[in-house]
């Protein structure tokens, strides 16, 4: 890689640092193509879930309305929604050439994401105790595959942002690292987009 200038003065910091280089532009376009692919991936999982919802083998198997609890889904939604806002703050400070604040807000995003993830794990353990597992019914398979794929994305997003925070901690910010942070934040927003549909279609429509 060519010589890279880190922590330049604000007068020389581009208005859109994330797409200031050819590499940044390519990342940006490529990542939106990837997100379109992710949309169709999650769409097929949602379609499967809607088709198989409440398809259970016997009377004693719990249904969606018996399992889901609104308060937990609400708290999880708040965690993820707020973490989306904190990553917006991170991008705001990245564009303003404020490295310390960018790291701080990325860190808060990771903490909120961890809160979400631990609630989801707690929720899954609870369901398994009620006899709702990946193998207990077609409903279970569709549910855990949809929620699990989303949870897996959360894990990847958390790992990704954590690695960015650690890797950039000592070298600071440049148009090279700005593009990386921007891509990770787009990914994190997309996770929230998917969650909006999960809490609507799985939880809100599930308890009715």
């Amino acid at each position, binding site marked *: 890689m060519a010589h890279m200038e880190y922590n330049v003065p604000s007068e020389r910091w581009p208005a859109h640092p994330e797409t200031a*280089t050819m*590499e940044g532009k390519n990342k*940006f376009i490529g990542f939106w193509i990837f*997100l*379109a692919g992710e949309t169709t991936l999650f769409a097929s999982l949602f379609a499967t879930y809607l088709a198989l919802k409440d398809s259970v083998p016997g009377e004693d198997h719990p249904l969606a309305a018996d399992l889901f609890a609104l308060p937990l889904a609400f708290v999880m939604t708040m965690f993820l929604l707020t973490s989306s806002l904190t990553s917006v703050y991170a991008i705001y400070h990245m564009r303003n050439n404020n490295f310390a604040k960018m790291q701080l807000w990325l860190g808060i995003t990771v903490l909120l994401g961890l809160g979400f993830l631990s609630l989801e794990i707690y929720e899954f353990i609870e369901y398994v105790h009620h006899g709702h597992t990946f193998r207990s019914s077609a409903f279970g398979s569709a549910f855990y595959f949809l929620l699990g794929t989303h949870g897996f994305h959360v894990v990847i997003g958390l790992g990704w942002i954590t690695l960015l925070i650690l890797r950039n901690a000592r070298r600071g910010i440049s148009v090279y690292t700005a593009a990386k942070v921007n891509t990770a934040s787009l990914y994190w927003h997309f996770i929230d987009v998917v969650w909006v549909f999960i809490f609507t279609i799985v939880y809100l429509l599930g308890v009715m």
Partner: protein
Amino acid sequence: MAEIKQEPMSKKKLDYVRRERTREMRQQIISFSLMIFLTFVAFGLVAMDVSPQFVIPIVIGMAFIQVILQFYYFMHMKDKGHEFAKLFIMTGIFFALSFVVTFIYIVWIGKPI
């Protein structure tokens, strides 16, 4: 490969760019409060046990509004230079909707083949 080809900005230009960013931040906070509000309303409607025929379309509609806010304001799709992003996401959403409609029709509505 990745040097900054940026001419130093004048003080005035820098102030302008900063102001624009603050303005954008304000829009993003407004859209965040809207998203929180929509979430409260959606959960509230379901918790109040209003009839499902009435609630389901409203709740799904509010999910779409939230996602549009997320894409346009949080992911900056309203900004210039996002034509490709729009094209890709619209294509993705087109496929997404057709998958969901097809599956629901095949399993729940249509007669068995």
